[in-house]
């Protein structure tokens, strides 16, 4: 057996985290059609907000998490309202929005570093007291179980939200064609604002989970976002199940890829997977 069960567990946990980022990225990308580089920073904002509420202010951890998620949602909403919406009104191209989001990412990341220093921090109180479960010779922590469970619940939430509610229908209408959606009387900018709130809140929550599992640092967002992007492209942009499939595929490829070599190759392996897919199956696994 050896290391194999642990590798499988690690892949599944990575897959769960990528699922959350891929779903939220996908939601924003499919409605706005621009590559929002600042999306990853929301994970850092969520993580640091919980750090502030629980460790500096001493609030109960559950309240801190709820506040952190809401705060992150509002940051995403605000960024859309004050920057992206203004650009959309000016009919800016997607590339302009991409560069603006690069600016947002750089500035927010640095503000976090000024407020909390750029040192690595962890949200969990004491690693040793965490419950550890053994499954088939592999080890999984309580936090990691929560991550798995959250991924499943949030995915179910997305499916219900997008396919069973009136609001979800509106969102899908905008994804199909924003122009037409506006013509039939949908206030697209308002809906996109909500989408930013939801997407950012989910990513903020992901950042909090990562904070309990490994830890947080101001620059954690970019590589996380790129993993989410790779997962959603590999799975098929705009397809919920595709995003999940892509996320787990990426988790497995990454973790098995570093079986025999150094862990620092992970990012390179992830991008290699992306490039292979973009060349041979650019529409992703699930899309027709």
């Amino acid at each position: 057996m050896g290391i194999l069960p642990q590798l499988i567990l690690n892949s599944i946990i990575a897959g769960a985290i990528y699922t959350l980022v891929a779903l939220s990225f996908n939601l924003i990308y499919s409605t706005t059609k621009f590559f929002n580089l600042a999306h990853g920073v929301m994970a850092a904002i969520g993580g640091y907000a919980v750090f502030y509420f629980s460790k500096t202010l001493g609030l109960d951890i559950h309240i801190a998490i709820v506040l952190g998620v809401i705060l992150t949602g509002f940051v995403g909403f605000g960024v859309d309202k004050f920057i992206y919406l203004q650009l959309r009104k000016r009919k800016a191209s997607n590339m302009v929005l991409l560069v603006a989001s690069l600016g947002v990412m750089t500035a927010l990341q640095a503000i976090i570093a000024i407020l909390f220093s750029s040192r690595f921090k962890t949200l969990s109180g004491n690693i040793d007291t965490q419950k550890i479960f053994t499954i088939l010779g592999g080890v999984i922590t309580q936090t990691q179980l929560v991550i798995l469970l959250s991924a499943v619940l949030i995915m179910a939430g997305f499916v219900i939200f997008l396919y069973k509610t009136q609001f979800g229908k509106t969102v899908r209408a905008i994804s199909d064609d924003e122009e037409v959606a506006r013509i039939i009387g949908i206030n697209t900018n308002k809906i996109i604002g909500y989408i930013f709130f939801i997407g950012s809140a989910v990513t903020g929550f992901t950042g909090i989970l990562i904070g309990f599992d490994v830890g947080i640092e101001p620059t954690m967002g970019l590589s996380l976002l790129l993993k989410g992007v790779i997962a959603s492209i590999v799975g098929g942009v705009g397809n919920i199940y595709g995003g999940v499939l892509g996320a787990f595929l990426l988790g497995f490829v990454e973790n098995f890829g570093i079986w025999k070599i150094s862990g620092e190759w992970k990012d390179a392996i992830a991008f290699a997977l992306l490039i292979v897919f973009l060349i041979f199956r650019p529409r992703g696994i699930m899309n027709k």
Partner: protein
Amino acid sequence: MEYLIHLAILFVIYATLGVSLNLVVGYTGLLSVTHAAFYGIGAYTTAIFLTKSGVGFFSSLVSGIVIVVVISFLVGVVLSKFKGDYYALVTFGFNAIIFAVFLNWQNLTNGSLGVPGISRPELFGINFANNFNFLILALIFFVLVYFASRFIVNSSFGRVLKAIREDETAIAVFGYKTLSFKLVVFIISAAMAAVAGSLFASYITFIDPSSFQLTESMFILAIIILGGLGNLRGSILGALFLILLPEILRFVGFSSDIDAQMRQVVYGIILILLMLYRPQGLIGEYKL
């Protein structure tokens, strides 16, 4: 005075990077975010040749260019399949992969410890260990790169590049093989970045992978967007501004840790404001 010369050398190196990247982004309209990878390959080739073998600076420079030409050819062929967001994303990927190679090819690059003790060039009895002499050397290379770039953009080749930027389908209909035009300009631009890398390595005399991350590519992109796309003088202006910016902030008197972050905040905000109010940059001729 010594410090001014240091700033001047950095400025010249970044101006070289900016001018060369402008050929691809500003004149051809391809949002490439992988310039630091070619810059790094140039730097590492010089570093490794100068520390591990007896060859001189100029042979190492030429070898760097040759290696970069080969690699950028391969990268360019893959990139030729993509447009817009996906083009940018794949260039992110190449930067991440090359960075992982710098970090993990221990025997050759010494991993994260970097390569120390790179010597300064000596030629015709002039010793470039003197910083002023080195500035002249860097300037000579910059002038060569600048005039080569100017020649390219004013030639009929350059006019085709601009036509590709404005409407690739239209120019393809006229029988121009746009793919090879894009590939050639990509290779030329990468080779120029390799020159900047060689100069950087032998000037700083120590390099490590952290200088060639994705964020460095984004910094070079910020230089040319600030100065203005499709204008070579704009890239010089952009480099001047972003190299001097930290010096201006120095007068405000933050502590050194906050100072570095403050710079990032300012540079993020500059990008956002530019996109909102002046997407063509200071003196640019092309809007993204």
